[in-house]
């Protein structure tokens, strides 16, 4: 089906679809070769998407499947353009999972120009702080590291070194005149990945022995409970 649809498109449109999908191809390719390349890329993309999916996401994905293949439309951007920049200094930090956060920022045009004018030393970078509380003050900073940026960068995925820790980011410009913090992000907390232990409430540390004996007589005891009991008696 998708092959038949691709055959309708001109070589130019096939080329622009390949570019949009990030597929590298020889500019001298003929239509059939380009179609094969695209089909291979679509199939790989689909396999990659499906491999990642847990059962809930797989079911959800099927909900939206009303076609056999993906719509191949181009130039959709033309109708509803969005601002490339809001011409302000700001940085936002979003927590994605315990190990990764996403930062996006915007920089005023004047400041971008000043960085350019300050070359070769002029540059932009992110300073990622690990902080004890909510505020970035000297006494609260535990660690920090810098991420150099190019002027074209507008976002970054940041690997969070620790879990259960607060992070905040400064967007900093290095001008000829010195360093300037253009914007400071919100603070995020990387979630814990271990189960919090609170043995006082934990029934497996203080099991109802009578209930277990009764259960043992009536049924097979699950392995996990036995190993916890064994640990308790041997420690």
């Amino acid at each position, binding site marked *: *089906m998708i092959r*038949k*649809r691709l055959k*309708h498109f001109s070589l130019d449109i096939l080329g622009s679809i390949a570019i949009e999908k990030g597929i590298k191809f020889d500019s001298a390719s003929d239509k059939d070769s380009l179609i094969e390349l695209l089909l291979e890329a679509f199939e790989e993309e*689909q396999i990659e*998407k*499906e491999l*990642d*999916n*847990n*059962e*809930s*996401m*797989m*079911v*959800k*994905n*099927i*909900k*939206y*499947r*009303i*076609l*056999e*293949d*993906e*719509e191949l*439309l181009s130039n*959709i*951007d033309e*109708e*509803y*353009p*969005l*601002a490339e920049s809001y011409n302000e200094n700001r940085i*936002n930090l*979003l*927590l*994605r*999972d315990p190990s990764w956060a*996403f930062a*996006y920022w915007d920089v005023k045009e004047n400041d971008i120009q000043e960085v350019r004018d300050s070359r070769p030393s002029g540059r932009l970078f992110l300073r990622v702080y690990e902080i004890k509380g909510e505020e970035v003050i000297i006494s609260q900073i535990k660690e920090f590291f810098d991420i150099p940026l190019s002027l074209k960068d*507008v*976002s970054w995925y940041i690997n969070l070194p620790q879990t259960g820790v607060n992070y905040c980011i400064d967007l900093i410009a290095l001008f000829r005149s010195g360093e300037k913090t253009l914007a400071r992000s919100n603070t995020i907390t990387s*979630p*814990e*990945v*271990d*189960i*919090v232990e*609170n043995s006082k*409430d*934990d*029934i*497996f540390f203080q*099991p*109802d022995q009578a*209930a277990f004996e009764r259960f043992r007589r009536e*049924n097979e005891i*699950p392995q996990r409970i036995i190993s916890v009991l064994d640990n308790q008696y041997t420690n």
Partner: protein
Amino acid sequence: MSKGYICLVLHAHLPFVRHPKYEHVLEENWLYEAITETYLPLLRVFQSLIDDEIPIRITFSVSPTLAAMLSDELLQERFIQFLDSQIELGEKEIVRLADEPEAKKLAESYLINYRLNKEDFVEKYKGQLGKVLKEMQKEGELEIITTSATHCFLPLFKEYPRAVEAQIETAVLSHSRSFGEAPKGMWLPECGFYPGLERYLKNNNLEYFFTASNGILHSSRKAKYGVYAPLRCPDGIHAFGIDLKTNREVSSGIDGYPTDYSYRDFKQDVGFELEEEYLGPFIYANEVRGHTGYKYYSKKMDGSESRLYKPEIAAAKAEEHADNFIYKQLKRVNKLSAAMDRPPVTVCAFDVEMFGRWWFEGPNWLESVLRKIHANNSLEMITPVTYLERHNDNQISIPGFSSWGNNGYAQVWLNSKNDWIYRHLHKAIERLQELVKRYPDESGLKEWVLNQAAREVLLSQASDWPFIMKMGPTVPYAVQRVREHLHNFTKIYENLCQNTVNTEWVTRIEKKNNLFPDLDYRVFKKKS
């Protein structure tokens, strides 16, 4: 008392898709296919159980956007046209398959189903599926809950608490309008939770919500009963955790029940095989083909030939899978109940569209499970409200940041395919709040425009769009929708900054995006 409870949650949601300007837009088929393959068959299952006095006690989440579409007259009319196309195709199929008696028998059974769908939808329900659910809730058969207004993945809006509350408040108001009473519970979109969110839910008088299993397991204090009892947050709202193991056993795409080879294959549809001229309305613009519902083959093993679907074998398998489900639940309950001071509750939650649309035999399986549970003294179907009436002394703890997406966090809705949207979505919230501050007490024309601005901001936040951008299939449509709503909002914002209003244009977009008629833009007002 039962040894164990089953809390079955069916979550029904579709994003708001309505294009009055066009005769047909492909994405409207999401709604039509869901109604014809899932909602109507499930309502027949529920009615059959009610007729036999078998309690249902399912928790049914209906998103505000879906409720709005179900009650929309234009979409109801278009659905009937869709059904007519299915019926017409069925009549042609019976002629085409005259020399293939087994396939013809299948086509006849589908035709009977689609005719029954039309009869139920038009005559019995008068197009008002929401009202049918409302009646079933009134009779105590279902507990209907809500989700956020446009199914927004709330953790990615954590820094905009007023926007999060706006999603919740709007949902509660919309639900009350649709179902005649405020919801007691909320299905968090994608089970997306972060510590602190519970306060906003409680502020809106919700009594419980559902969260992913890793949210419970990584809660602030170790959940002593795991996901088999709810947690009580300090402010009194309860969190029920989904049992990942049961969910996986039922719905896994690798070895869950729907993958059995005797079940009908979702993909092999005549819509992708037969001549375009024959298929008529099932061929859309740009020669795009869609599902017709006429599927004649069982699930295909890799490298094997297609086998004709045998409904009687599939029905027997559904019965077997229902027995298997009960067996596994009993085994689990027997182990757990010895270690707990109350019957364990197993929360099984699914997107409802799995039943019927993807897993054709799913409604039969569900009916069989409910009948078997009723006949079994050890298991009992329960809703969260009933559970909390019986067991109100629950462990105090707050779930951790979590979702039921891949890897348990925000990865599906925040990745290289869709991360570009958030700077614009967040900016739109900030600008809307700026408008609310500038116009705190408008009435008349300006209030009307501001309400539409709020509507566009809410619509831009639907989690469906970043999901589709990541997973497909209709990526260009998802991109277009986000851009369209942001563009609409920005245009209103810029006009108001210049103190102008283009009433003709706002009327046009309001007529198209006509949900939440009671929406008040002040719902985005920052609290001091």
